[in-house]
């Protein structure tokens, strides 16, 4: 999973179209694999994905975007193999967070993979 997230980070940070729409975006994203009880944490600072860690790191942000699903679904979402909104409406993925943050993530998926 960490490899997939690192690859996702490279694609997002290098894509000028994505950087234009997320340039002032500051947030934390916590990914939780509910079948393995493993968490990953990503920090986004002014649209750039920074550190990616194993584990849910408390960094002062008590309202991060939290995405919960089984490991296979989470990997498929961040590899661009499945549509996050469809997975969410099908109950495969739980998403907690502000609506505009969810829309930003969805827009990234649309630009990167066209899904």
């Amino acid at each position, binding site marked *: 999973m960490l490899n997939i997230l690192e690859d996702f980070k490279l694609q997002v940070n290098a894509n000028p179209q994505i950087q234009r*729409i997320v340039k*002032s975006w500051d947030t934390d994203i916590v990914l939780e694999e509910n079948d393995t009880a493993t968490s990953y944490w990503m920090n986004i600072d002014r649209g750039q994905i920074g550190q990616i860690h194993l584990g849910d790191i408390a960094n002062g942000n008590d*309202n991060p975007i*939290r995405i*919960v699903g089984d490991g296979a679904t989470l990997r498929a979402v961040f590899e661009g193999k499945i*549509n996050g*909104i*469809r997975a*969410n*409406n*099908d*109950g495969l*993925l*739980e*998403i*907690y*967070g*502000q*609506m*505009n943050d*969810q*829309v*930003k993530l*969805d*827009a990234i998926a*649309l630009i990167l993979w066209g899904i």
Partner: protein
Amino acid sequence: MKNAFDVLRLCAIAVGMAITISCNTVLVSLFPFVQGSALFAALGIAGLCMGVIVLCFTELASRFPGAIGIRAFTKAAFGNRFSLSITLFYVVMMMMIGGLEGYLCYLLLLQVLSPPIAVLVLLVLVLSILMVNLSGYELSLNLQIAITVAVVTLMLVLAVMAFAEPATGTHPAVAPTRIDGLLGAVPRALFLFVGIEWAVMHVSRHDAFRRTLPIALIISVATIALLYGTFGAALQKHFVAAELGSLALPHLELARVIASPAALWLATLVGLLAVLSSFNVGLSGAARILYSLAREREIPAWFAQLHGPRLSPRNAMLFISAGVMLMAPLMAAPVLNTSLSRLFSAHLVAVYALILLAWLKIRRQPDRRGVKQPLHPLIVWPTMLFLAVIGVGVIAEPEAKIARLILLGELAVIGAICTYLYRPTLIKA
């Protein structure tokens, strides 16, 4: 403290979506069926049904956090195609309510402005809300909270002013309410709560499904029942039942009876704020449904186009706004005007009964995800059957011919859209 603010925020969204000036119009449509204390009985029964509905909504939403509620629940319970039909049916209902709101707002503006200026002001108001929503969701949420608090306060002030005035005219004794009268009033009373459930889309923490959201929704149901009960009692003090049923803008008529310039200003302000409030939440909510369906590739990708730094679903918002503005003049047609409360009640009861049926189906599934609410199928089954009976009753009324035709037309169009979207193609997936 944070939980209290969350409850308040969710209450503001829920109540703000439910309070509309069309609710006042529907409220007076209850009086041919129930008067006096029976009004409170109808509101109480509708409130209890709504209590069950919002708890079902909360439990179902906790299984699909972040998803479009009605879409996700019905898809899990009934399959994709039927879910798409119900979701579109719901969006059409929201656009019709928006159209009625726009028309009533125009009538309100006509009290103080000439017709062309009233149309212009209405357009400016709708476009202003559209611009606020296009600029992002956060601003619209803060605006929503402020408007909701203002509308609730102003309605209560207006009711208190009406109670303080001596009753006008002579009132005949209230006839005893028959059971069929009560059954006719409940689906219309249910309309007063429409939209409360949209608050589930604004939950940002999983633990909020356990206590914060159900508490907020139950408080919202009680607030609305109390608000309209108080307002209905104030109206009954000054009008006889026969007069009340024909009032398009009852809050304005109440202000006229009080004969105070301040009351008239309050009534106008209540109307305008209620329109802004419901259009604001309805626009962002309905647009999000269309956006989500487009991203699922169920409807054309045009609806998924995003705009601006906050990535608002521009095309979906423009579509909803245009639909509302097109429906508004249709509401003036006498043939439609007399069927509206019946039509809206039938829509609403059908959607809510299906949500309860979805809950019953999903509760039986072995999957234990989500947060269970203190509900038992022995409560939900009778509520669903009750909704089905009163829904059929509304449409079976002898005067419901137009409403039946409109419903049939609507179902035919949605059926045709879904059939087209799922047409067999030569290209294999």
